[in-house]
């Protein structure tokens, strides 16, 4: 009885939260096209979110490429299908692993950062101070970060993908002495246009999710330093969940369209 009650109240608060997030997102779309634009702050955020995540995304992608190829090589060898390696790696990395891993890494690094930064600004009244000084804090803080995350994630994904493929190539080069041109030629001949477009489009959505959830959590942070930690934490958890859901929807839609 109490468990049911507890669960239903949890479900209710989940929908409450989701509703508030939607209102927050609507507000974003209302403000994003309205002048004045905060270009210099947008550039700064692109740098913070994009350039500063490059190393992490690159290294992770590279290692995933290496490991993925090393792990799947024996199995392919058993079936005498090692020549399929480039196409298999290409398809799985570009379609799925690259976008997903990049988005999850950014949810951890960028989402929590945004949640904590805006949360502490809220708690120490810096957001109120901005409001008083005639700058719309929603525009200055939220819009710039969400736009930057949306624009930067596709770029980060491309970098991650490229390094993962390069890692995979290094393994093949080590074992079979294939040339870079040949390897990448094989990778891209296996890919269709239908692979590239949807997997790029979904990274925009991943970026948007990371930005909007991080901002939502930080901007509406409760009082106190506990609130800031919670904002950062929840930003990561919610964003990761949302990324999986979005990915599922993306795969479903692609499946329908390219049948």
């Amino acid at each position, binding site marked *: 009885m109490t468990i049911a009650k507890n669960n239903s109240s949890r479900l209710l608060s989940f929908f409450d939260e989701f509703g508030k997030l939607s209102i927050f997102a609507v507000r974003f779309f209302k403000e994003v096209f309205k002048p004045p634009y905060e270009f210099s702050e947008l550039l700064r955020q692109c740098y913070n979110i994009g350039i500063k995540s490059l190393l992490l995304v690159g290294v992770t992608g590279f290692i995933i490429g290496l490991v993925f190829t090393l792990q799947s090589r024996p199995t392919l060898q058993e079936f005498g299908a090692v020549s399929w390696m480039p196409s298999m790696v290409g398809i799985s990395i570009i379609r799925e692993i690259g976008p997903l891993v990049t988005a999850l890494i950014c949810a951890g690094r960028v989402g929590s950062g945004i949640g904590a930064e805006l949360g502490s*600004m809220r708690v120490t*009244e*810096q957001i*109120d*101070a*901005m409001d*008083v*000084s*005639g*700058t719309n804090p929603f525009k200055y803080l939220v819009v710039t970060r969400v736009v930057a995350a949306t624009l930067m994630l596709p770029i980060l994904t491309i970098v991650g993908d490229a390094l993962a493929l390069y890692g995979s190539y290094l393994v093949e080069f080590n074992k079979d002495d294939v040339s870079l041109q040949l390897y990448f030629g094989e990778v891209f001949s296996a890919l269709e246009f239908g692979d590239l477009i949807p997997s790029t489009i979904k990274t925009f959505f991943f970026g948007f999710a990371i930005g909007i959830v991080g901002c939502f959590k930080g901007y509406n942070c409760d009082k106190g330093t506990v609130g800031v930690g919670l904002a950062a934490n929840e930003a990561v958890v919610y964003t990761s969940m949302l990324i999986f859901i979005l990915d599922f929807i993306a795969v479903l839609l692609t499946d329908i369209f390219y049948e």
Partner: protein
Amino acid sequence: MSSNKELTQEKKIVVSIQDLFISFGDNHVLNGFSLELFEGENLVVMGKSGCGKSIMIKCLIGLQSVDSGSINIMGTEIANLEKEQLDDLRTEIGFLFQGSALYDSMSVRENLDFPLRRHTNKFGVLNNTDAMIIEALRSVGLESAIDLMPSELSGGMKRRIALARTLILKPKIILYDEPTTGLDPITSKEIVLLMKSIQETYKTSSIIITHDMDCARAISNRMILLIDGIAYVTGTFEELSKSIDPKVKAFFK
């Protein structure tokens, strides 16, 4: 005493709050609070921690919505204002936040520059903000800190920089939320002197929220005690300190 009364009566009212009610759920914070601030006056508001002082001055600047009551600032009813009009009015009001609220990610110069970015209606387009920044820093005696980051400043310096940031728009009204709390007695005294000199130089009217008796004695022209969500009693520091009401006496122990 009577001459003091006459003086205030002929003065213009710059801020007037009437019957303000604010509650958070069952927590009725303000229950019909009223206040009048006269031109050129330093009005001290005192009250127990958590009685709603910060909430009350946040209403004045449109950071907090009210349940009912009217707030009039220099002849404008703020409830009916559009966002732009509110922003224009805000250029006339300086607000010193309880925790200074300097922007952590910006240097002192950028902190002071920030209010100048949008509030250009008041001064026209600005091309030399540096001169204004330096002037504001000079008035708080911290020109040397211009390129430091907030994390490199002490609590007292932060308070001064925050004060410089509120001064930069040359406001007619300044709202101080506990300007001396958390500072040592000597630094507190410096801040009080600074507030006095600001009032004399810029002819501002101020509402000062404080727990600090020395600060209240030094700066107040008039005091209000906020008790149980209303303006319980109003008078000069001497009048209140001689009061025999136990609730008032409790403050002056």
